[in-house]
């Protein structure tokens, strides 16, 4: 389609791209009706009516609601109907309604060195950093145009030069939990801006180096949380960890650009403070930003065993992981504790102001960063078990 080609090539020209590169898959953000509005919906319908179709595998970022259980979750009728119209338009455009920020957890695993056009910031940073694929942070329309064209502009993180580290961070404190990784990501994102950080984890965890397959390792929640935080507090699209991530294993210090800035981080207390460490009452607890993996759901179910929540506990995940959790009985355990497990959506894109909550407890540094501006919520930040404890007691303990 002419307009898709024009959009991809013009953006390429702006960024000084050296032509186009075929992409293996596309991930389109800008799905929630809250963000698209009537204008976005009209745009998608226009393109669908003109016959535009994705020619490479293309999938969606989270929507503003669970696409099947939205009424039970209290989503306003009008919003729900418009959201389903958006999904329908994307379907006609040939984009799969996966509605997840973690496509790599439901079988869409990019290969090392493969070129992509993904747009969800946390998925971009995971694909680039942990899997060694190559994608810029595409905007919603440019990702859609790339899907229709099957190509994107070759610039930025598609090229070796832009994948070199601009910031070297010596981390001199231990990292004990995914929340610690999230806090670190928050600090690093602010220092790195849109550059590429190279982390040297001096105090472990040592086992991280031993993982040959990071995506199959127990460190997925840690790496997912850290990358999402960097992409939220900064505009990071790629990080390296010495001896751990694929390009760092292959190239080592050769990945560090000439003129890179060197810094060290001795403790994470500043991050915890800024993300909302203080204890106190909470109205809602959110787990699953980015979308929870099956292992995280299982861990939450184990922690909540024989307990009952007194505050809304919303756990967001992908449809595929939700279905698998149901099959394995994990969903029943979570629901017995009073938790609501939602697919297809997350708090960052849901119409949160409608619900009137004031304070959210979360184990996501990304959500804590966006809570005030995007959701009108004050955040309290802490590890999974502390957040779940808050869901039971109604009060977050200081960490």
């Amino acid at each position, binding site marked *: 389609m002419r*307009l898709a080609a024009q959009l991809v090539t*013009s953006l390429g020209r702006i960024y000084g791209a050296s032509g186009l590169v075929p992409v293996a898959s596309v991930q389109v953000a800008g799905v929630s009706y809250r*963000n698209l509005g009537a204008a976005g919906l009209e*745009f998608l319908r226009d393109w669908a009516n003109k016959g535009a179709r994705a020619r490479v595998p293309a999938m969606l970022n989270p929507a503003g609601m669970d696409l099947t259980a939205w009424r039970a979750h209290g989503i306003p009728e009008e919003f729900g109907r418009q959201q389903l119209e958006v999904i329908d338009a994307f379907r006609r455009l040939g984009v799969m309604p996966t509605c997840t920020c973690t496509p790599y957890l439901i079988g869409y695993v990019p290969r090392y060195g493969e070129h992509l056009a993904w747009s969800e910031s946390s998925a971009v940073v995971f694909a680039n950093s942990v899997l060694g694929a190559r994608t810029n942070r595409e*905007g*919603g329309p*440019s990702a859609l145009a790339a899907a229709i064209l099957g190509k994107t502009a070759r610039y930025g993180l598609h090229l070796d030069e832009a994948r070199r580290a601009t910031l070297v961070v010596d981390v001199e404190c231990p990292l004990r939990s995914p929340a610690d990784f999230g806090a670190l990501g928050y600090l690093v994102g602010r220092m790195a801006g849109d550059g590429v950080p190279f982390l040297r984890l001096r105090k472990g965890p040592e086992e991280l180096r031993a993982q040959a397959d990071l995506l199959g390792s127990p460190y997925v929640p840690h790496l997912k949380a850290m990358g999402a935080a960097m992409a939220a507090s900064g505009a990071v699209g790629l990080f390296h960890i010495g001896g751990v991530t694929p390009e760092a294993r292959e190239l080592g210090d050769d990945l560090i650009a000439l003129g890179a800035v060197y810094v060290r981080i001795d403790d994470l207390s500043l991050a915890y403070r800024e993300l909302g460490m203080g204890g106190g009452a909470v109205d809602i607890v959110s787990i699953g930003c980015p979308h929870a993996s099956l292992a995280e759901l299982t861990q939450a179910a184990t922690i909540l065993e024989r307990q009952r929540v007194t505050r809304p506990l919303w756990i967001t995940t992908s449809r595929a992981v939700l279905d698998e959790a149901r099959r394995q009985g994990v969903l029943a355990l979570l629901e017995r504790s009073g938790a609501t497990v939602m697919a297809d959506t997350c708090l960052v894109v849901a119409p949160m102001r409608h619900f009137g909550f004031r304070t959210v407890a979360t184990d996501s540094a990304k959500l804590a960063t966006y809570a005030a501006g995007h959701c009108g919520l004050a955040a309290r930040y802490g590890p999974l078990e502390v957040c779940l404890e808050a869901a039971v007691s109604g009060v977050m303990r200081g960490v």
Partner: protein
Amino acid sequence: MRVLYGRVIQPGRASGLALVTAEPISFLGQVDPETGRVVDPHHPLAGCDVTGRVLVFPTGKGSTVGSYVLYQLAKNRHAPAAIVNARCEAIVATGAIISGIPTIDGVDTSQFVSGQKVSIEEGGRIVIDA
């Protein structure tokens, strides 16, 4: 009459009265897609209507959803006639391309004054009637 040359982001010819600001614009939140009015009271153009104007500003900023706001402005017949930027970033470029709004960048935007008659021509040529 003065002539400037810039880089074509979205081709096309247009003319209109310049509406000029030295502040970046976030179309999401600062411009009402229904009326074309600048609704952010903190923006120097607050209360101005972008409809049919040659909108001159240094660069875009803010949410990528801003591209869709430009699209909606065009659908509602409240789009600027053309856009002139010092540096066009992806949000404005995307919005201009999907909406067909002639757009040129790489121009010294301090050369423009609100109310001047400005014509956008082929090849990135801009004519300012003094």
